[in-house]
């Protein structure tokens, strides 16, 4: 009798490579790579079946630090390359590591289409609201008035919201977390992986060199409870240090509002209950901004739908089933042909 030895369960450290990490000391990316390794260990995925694909930027260096297959490509194009990978081999487990410049500026078009097509992969958008690797220019998510080498008087462009963009592009899974939330972030990565289809995770990431503390209005320890709301499907939307606040839908104004539970006759039943299958609600939650609102974290939206590569594969299987012989010679001979014999007699073969 042969006993098949089960492979030893991989630990987070097994997903580390021997390459020296080249991010700045104190960069939020260290926390993210740690969370990613933890998530992979928890998911018990195999190294050989996992592929990290990235474009250009600080975030895009992540594949070098993962002991899986990895492809560091060109600026903004990771979603397109990942789509090609999934078309060639849908069984591969593909993750995209990208930044706000990479996927909302130069690669905005590809992000739109990979989400719309619902290719089964995970997209981790490291949003630090700045261009790091090119030394600190404002990015498409930078807030109005951001001072940078290219905007010495402050930026005059209104920023794009990554989560709202993803929802608008038709993403079927949108989640949010913060680099330093080492319990929450791996959970979001696991949820993203469990979802079949294009899963979009926006990670608020601190750039210690060019944009330090840009998210501290809601990530700093002393304000976190008041400025973050952690969404859970089916649960009422409480937040605040003693869970005394909540989110209510004001039907008259057709907007969300922050309320104090227990004052003015407001009870728990008046609060919104999170329904992660509701795209309209997700859109409103994504649009909540501090200081007026807490920042929504967790799974904003999740509604599984058929994946792109599945539909492509089904069409191919159907075509194969309808043409079992698959003789290439038949392709060359289809339609009108004629033959010429040694007496130069021309004949049209019957089809």
């Amino acid at each position, binding site marked *: 009798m042969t006993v098949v030895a089960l492979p030893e369960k991989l630990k987070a450290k097994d997903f580390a490579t021997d390459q020296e990490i080249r991010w700045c000391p104190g960069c939020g990316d260290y926390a993210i790579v740690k969370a990613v390794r933890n998530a992979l260990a928890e998911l018990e995925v195999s190294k*050989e*079946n996992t592929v990290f694909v990235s474009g250009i930027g600080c975030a895009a260096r992540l594949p*070098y630090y993962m002991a899986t297959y990895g492809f560091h*490509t*060109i600026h903004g194009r990771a979603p397109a390359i990942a789509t090609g990978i999934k*078309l060639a081999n849908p069984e591969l487990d593909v993750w995209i590591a990208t930044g706000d410049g990479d996927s909302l500026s130069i690669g905005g078009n590809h992000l739109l289409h990979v989400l719309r097509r619902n290719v089964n992969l995970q997209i981790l958008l490291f949003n630090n609201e700045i261009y790091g690797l090119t030394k600190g220019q404002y990015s498409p998510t930078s807030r109005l008035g951001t001072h940078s080498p290219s905007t010495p008087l402050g930026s005059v462009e209104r920023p794009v919201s990554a989560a709202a963009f993803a929802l608008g592009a038709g993403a079927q899974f949108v989640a949010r977390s913060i680099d330093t939330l080492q319990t929450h972030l791996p959970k979001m990565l696991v949820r993203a992986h469990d979802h079949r289809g294009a899963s979009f995770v926006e990670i608020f990431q601190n750039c210690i060199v060019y944009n330090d503390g840009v998210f501290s209005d809601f990530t700093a320890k002393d304000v976190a409870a008041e400025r973050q709301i952690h969404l859970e499907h089916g649960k009422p939307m409480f937040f605040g240090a003693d869970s005394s606040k909540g989110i209510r839908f004001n039907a008259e104004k057709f907007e969300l509002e922050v309320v104090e539970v227990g004052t003015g006759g407001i009870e728990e039943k008046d609060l919104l209950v999170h329904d992660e299958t509701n795209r309209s609600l997700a859109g409103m939650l994504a649009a909540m901004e501090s200081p007026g609102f807490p920042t929504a974290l967790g799974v904003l939206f999740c509604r599984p739908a058929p994946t792109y590569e599945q539909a492509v594969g089904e069409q191919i299987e159907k075509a194969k089933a309808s043409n079992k012989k698959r003789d290439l010679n038949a392709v*060359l001979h289809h339609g*009108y042909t*004629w033959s010429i014999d*040694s007496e130069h007699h021309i004949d049209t073969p019957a089809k």
Partner: protein
Amino acid sequence: MEGPAAPAQAEVPRKALDAVVIRFAGDSGDGIQLTGGQFAQATALAGNDLQTFPDFPAEIRAPTGTKFGVSAFQINFSAKPTRTSGDEPDVLVALNPAALAVNLDELTPGGLVIVDAGTFSARNLEKAGYTSNPLEDGSLAKYRKLAIDISKMTLAAVENQKLSQKEALRCKNMWTLGLVFWLYGRRRKSTTDWLEAHFKHKPELAAANIAALNAGHAFGETAELSNDIGAYQVPSAELPVGTYRNITGTEALAWGLVTGTHLAKIKMVFCSYPITPASGLLHSLARLKEYDVVTFQAEDEIAAACAAIGASYAGSLGVTSSSGPGIALKTEAIGLAIATELPIVIVNSQRAGPSTGLPTKTEQSDLYQAVFGRNADSPLVVLAANSPSDCFEVAIEAVRLATKYMTPVIILSDSYIANASEPWHIPAIDQFAHFPVRFLTDKATCKPFARDTQTLARPWIKPGTPNMEHRIGGLEKDYDTGHISYDAENHQRMTNLRFGKIDGVANDIPLQDVEQGAITGKLAVVGWGSTFGPISHAVSNARADGIEVSHIHLRHIWPLPHNLGGLLAGFEQVLVPEMNHGQLVTLLRSQYLSHAESLSKVTGKPFTVHEIEDEIRLRMEA
């Protein structure tokens, strides 16, 4: 049998001709391309050799009756092997005044012009820029004229079919085709078969079109046309024994790519973004899903190139296709494929530029772009197809070189080749040698950038292979380990290696041969791509008159064949006709310090035979 409604082929004395060039022209909504295609089919079945040239406007439906809305289709058919779509037409079929105005100048003096007189209204004449009616003012005096009210004849022919006036008039191309079929003794069966299949679900349209076709044919038989119009016969050409079909460059490329990946035992992922004149390749391949072809209409040209790279990375062969402007967008991605040494095939169906240029007109002005058009030192392989049918073998060769050398390969086609058609002696798939790709799976040798000592190709390792996990990317890699390296000496070594690998492909391609003429002499005409036909004819015409001239035609543009420099040096003069401002000629001069000289043409139309022949005679008789 022609069909129940068709009268038997009348026995008329037919004048034999060696070759005829007919140009069908009309409004872009008149179905000219379809008419030409059907005439080509019937002509091929009559055993002639032929080549066709569709020439259509960029607008899908330009305003009716305007000159810029004229669509044309030219066919050259012959009792002898033919390699061009002909210079000046012998017959011009003009379905409206604008078609006559645009094309008449090119009709050979004494040629036959067939017009639909029913369209020569004051309004249509004005739209075509005529101040008087050319049918009446003597401007057709130097031609033979057959002016028929085809519109009226067509309406009469289909009146039993209960069609609207508009639908009924749409059949006039078939009436015209019926008449031209009669003039050249063509059988109608291939067209009636096609109409029945095409209008399977609209039998009334099939019946109307067949009725119009038969009526046009009957008109020829019974109208007692004057002697100078007459009936003709072009004897069949002596073609080798075998099975034939008409094929366009687009079809040949599609089938060549499928055959190439079949021989390589690999799946193809074809990624493209629509662009004229390259879209046809996407359409052709999208219908071949059962042959392990995945087609992907990407969101843009860049995504198409990148998805192809992703597919190759994952172990399929990624192929992308476009025309010049789209290839420009792909160049950064092509650089990534060069840096990561992944195989991809890039098809460029060239069109006239720069920028949007003349989207439906032909040119071969992307040779520089193919050979040199990327940032940094980034060599790759470039091949050029010389005719529609040649695309089949060129595509197979591209797949072979890409997978063997782990490199991008560019195939240069052009608008002419993509759309033109010619009879093709259909090969048996078994006659081609297999070249199965090998994926590295042996952990002991897992060095992603270790190399085959002969080809200098790196191994192909598919994600999903256990214990072979590794990272690749566009950053420079260490020669030995494949890890990121910013080392100065290493970059020099890797740059040299990338050039060495592509240079080495020259050891794997045939030496350059001479198509016609001696291997040394006074004059060699050197071409590439779709100039093959006119150069070939021009050289054989000159040689028939005793002029010693040779024809050399390149398939391998980069790397060039080893013996090419020596071959060119053996001629006193080297003439390079190109549909560009002089690109191959510059390449030859820079590579070999050659004395090659340019014959340039950039009108959006192929060279005529006499343009090249005149230049040969000028040089040799001076």
